[in-house]
């Protein structure tokens, strides 16, 4: 008898408690930047595509939903000829972001990706590429990689010595 009354009282008290339910979609919340939502491809500080088509994200992806083909431009930079993510398979684990050596692929706090047709969840590079560096502002892979690209000859990158002259025997 006592326990029944206590239950009724508890239920009654909750009728006046603070409400936590969010009236989505009318009411939107901001997610933490670390939220693992819609995936984007970012650009480096000089506006060039960051992804170098290294295939690490695609290899680490547990559901194998990233398909890439590498290509090389006349400027010596490697880039993905196509970069496809099948979001109908993606589990938003964030492994791809963790694996990416160039900070190109990033998960964003955008969770609103539902589509009535599954085929629309297949994103190509044009759908993924954004115009800025995303969460990692400064990093520029090609400044450090020691590779010769248009506008940066051998030895002109960060922390590099000028190229060796193999014909000299001077110490």
């Amino acid at each position, binding site marked *: 008898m006592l326990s029944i009354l206590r239950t009724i009282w508890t239920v009654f008290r909750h009728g006046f408690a603070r409400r936590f339910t969010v009236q989505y979609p009318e009411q939107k919340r901001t997610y933490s930047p670390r939220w693992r939502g819609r995936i984007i491809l970012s650009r480096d500080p000089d506006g060039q595509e960051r992804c170098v088509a290294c295939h690490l994200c695609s290899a680490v992806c547990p559901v194998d939903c990233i398909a890439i083909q590498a290509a090389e431009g006349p400027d010596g930079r490697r880039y993905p000829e196509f970069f496809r993510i099948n979001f109908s398979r993606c589990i938003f684990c964030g492994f791809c972001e963790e694996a990416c050596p160039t900070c190109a692929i990033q998960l964003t706090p955008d969770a609103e990706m539902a589509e009535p047709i599954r085929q629309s969840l297949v994103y190509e590079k044009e759908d993924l590429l954004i115009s800025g560096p995303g969460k990692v502002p400064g990093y520029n892979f090609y400044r450090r990689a*020691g590779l010769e690209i248009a506008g940066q000859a051998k030895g002109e990158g960060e922390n590099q010595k000028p190229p060796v002259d193999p014909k000299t025997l001077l110490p």
Partner: protein
Amino acid sequence: MKIYIENRRFDLTDPSVNLLEACLSLGFDVPYFCWHPVLRSVGACRQCAVKVFKDEADTRGRIVMSCMTAPAEGMRVSVNDDEAREFRAKVIEWLMLNHPHDCPICDEGGECHLQDVTVMAGHVRRQSRFPKRTHRNQDLGPLVNHEMNRCIQCYRCVRFYADYAGGRDVGVQGCHDGVYFGRPSPGPLESEFSGNLVEVCPTGVFTDKSLKRHYTRKWDLQTAPSVCVHCGLGCNTFPGQRYGTLRRVRTRYHREVNGYFLCDRGRYGYEFVNSPRRILQALLRQGDNALAQVSAEEAIRLAKSLLSSGKCIGLGSPRATLESNFALRTLVSPSRFFHPLAVSQHLLSGSSLSLLRRFPLASLRDVSQSTAVFLLGEDVSNTAPLLALALRQAAVRAPRLAKAALLKIPAWHEAALRTAVQEEKGPFFLAATGPTRLDDLAAAPYRAAPGDLAALGFAVAHALDPAAPAVPNLPPAAAELAERIAASLKSAAAPLIVSGPSCGSEALLHAAANVAAALGKTNPQARLCLTAPECNSVGLALLPGGNLADVLRALRDGSADTLIVLESDLYRHADAALVDEIFTAAKHVIVIDSLANATTARAELVLPAATFAESSGTLVNNEGRAQRSYAVCPPKAPVQESWRWLTALTPNVSWPRWEDILAAMAVSSGDFRDVTTLGPAADFRLVGQKIPRQPHRYSGRTAMTAHIDVREPAPAADLDTPLAFSMEGSPLNPPGPLIPRYWSPRWNSDQGVHKFQIEVAGPLQGGDPGKRIIEPSSEPAGYFAPTPPASEGDGEILFTPAWHVFGSEELSVHSPGIAELAPRPYVALGPVDAGRLGVRDGAPVTVTLAGRTLALPARILEAIPPGAAALPAALADLPFFSLPARGSVSLAAPAAPEGRP
């Protein structure tokens, strides 16, 4: 010999190995860079340190380089000793000081020995803050890419390229921390083995340039055990496929055949599979002479109606599988099966086979272990490249063995042996019609026309055994040389005679046979090695049939009216006039092939054939070794294996699976007894599972076709083999013939091949692939009588064929890299004739040969004997000539101002 590793006792069966090899064979992962299973030890990298203890009581021990230490009785070794581990971690840290850390854009990434060793040795964090050394790269031509920043100075590249393969244009330059590995100046690599740098270099300095154009990581490639189709040696390969195109070819180890290497034709020739000339649909010739696409069912119905006359002739192919040739022979009946060869080539193919049946044959491994060589007439660098590589090792073998015994140098101590031997060469005799890339091995190469080379061979046989017929009227110089060759071959423990059909001379083959017979009488170790022109030339020869002249005869006398041509371009095998006559005489022509060519252009019906990449089949190499090549990917319908097309046309025959046709072959002839057991049967399972062609890290499975349809297609079924077109399957190491790639935990690079071998450089676990199906007869071999050199045609110049590793093979020239390296047509003259005719190098000349006149630029080559000229053989831009033949050369008229004719 017993040694203790980590306090466990092991018995070394072969004490002639070094400690590193012993550890690797026993399954201990010792990191290394400069040691290589073939190039052996030089002790340059210091990465292979282990600790060795005097005895049980010794607790301090000392660090040694395992690759430079011989195991000793009772030796106690620790790989995991703390001090040794720390030492190795420091070594890799220091080797990585200047490394650019550009793995994401490095083509070696994911199969890089440097990555593997860095992880294995435990270097995880870079501490150095100093600027890194950089290097300028060189353009090394269309095959190999150069990125010198990544070098760790292990010296493997020069050791392979210059020391092992005899290349002259790659060396080490510079000094201290700036040593540079490359050419004196940028330019295409000259050696036909340059592609091996890609595999020999443990880092990404040298990478595959053809792969770069459609780059794919190793973990994304679907691979299968395959066999090279670009010459008769049958080197074992791993082709890799991704997104429906072939991406690259890597070496598949076979102890007896190619070992750890491939030639550039075999490595880079694969791109013909992706060629725009591929025939992908069944095609029917229309009234207006254009070819129109027809469905596979329609094509089969049409073909059956064309064949209904019952007067059909089948032309087999030296580059099609045994299965396809057998299916054709079954369809048309054995008496109507022919070889697509001109009379002379047909004769040579038959004689070669009869020699293969008579003599003990050398595998490439036997070749490299022979101690005296007589190379008679064959330009092996261009017709059978890996044989040239093996011969190069044979040339230094005798002095190496002698020095090793004299100075007590172990066989693995490459640095000491090379220093001891210097430039010394063993007995190596070379007789050729022109210059070869093995000339540097022979003291004095003998140059003559094919007939005179044969005479030399006959004389050698006579000098070895007086019972062998003598050669009348031999020039004294040749007679003296023959005596010297005979004496040297006679005293050698493992003499070898090498020849082949590429000179076009049957007498030459007979001469080689006489030498082999004479040697064999006294020395059971004597071996014969013959080259074969194409990947299944020997297989075709095992299915007897007439030549192209016989075909024309049969078409003319009305006993035949329809022709089925299997995977061959007849215009490459015989004079165009003869082939034209054949096509004119035939009422109907059906061609089954994979690339459009001059023969498909004459066909009424063309059926699309699968290439080696899309079909499984058996090929027989130059030494009669039958090997299985497995499909890398399924063919895209209507493309299918030629034997499947042919079976569909054959009444009362049903071979739905590969096994069925193999079983039919096995009972058809004693030669094919073993074709069913060359590899595990189709129902073979490894712990209940198939063997995956895709690595377990294969990526993009749910995205690669998602742009077409978001639902993933089921992987194609493979009912023919124990391999699956999928990443699902057994993770265990499959038996030798079924290994689809080399990968094991911690060994992502192909260096991990030792995980698949019984011991380092030993046989594969579960058996080596393939089997010799031709065994030498036990009867004593008789002698051929020397035949005087026959000369076809008239004219003062004898034309001999000059073969080109890049250019003389039909399929590989469809690879852009190979096409770029192929020569333009030319005619080569010796200095004497050039002087007589007033021809300068590069001058345009007119060649009159076999009723044709050709305008060609002249090349003047020191090594062409007087009265001879060399014409590139089987070049796409030159018509077929049956060489050797006589003709004439004259200075081209228009350039001469005096108005000579």
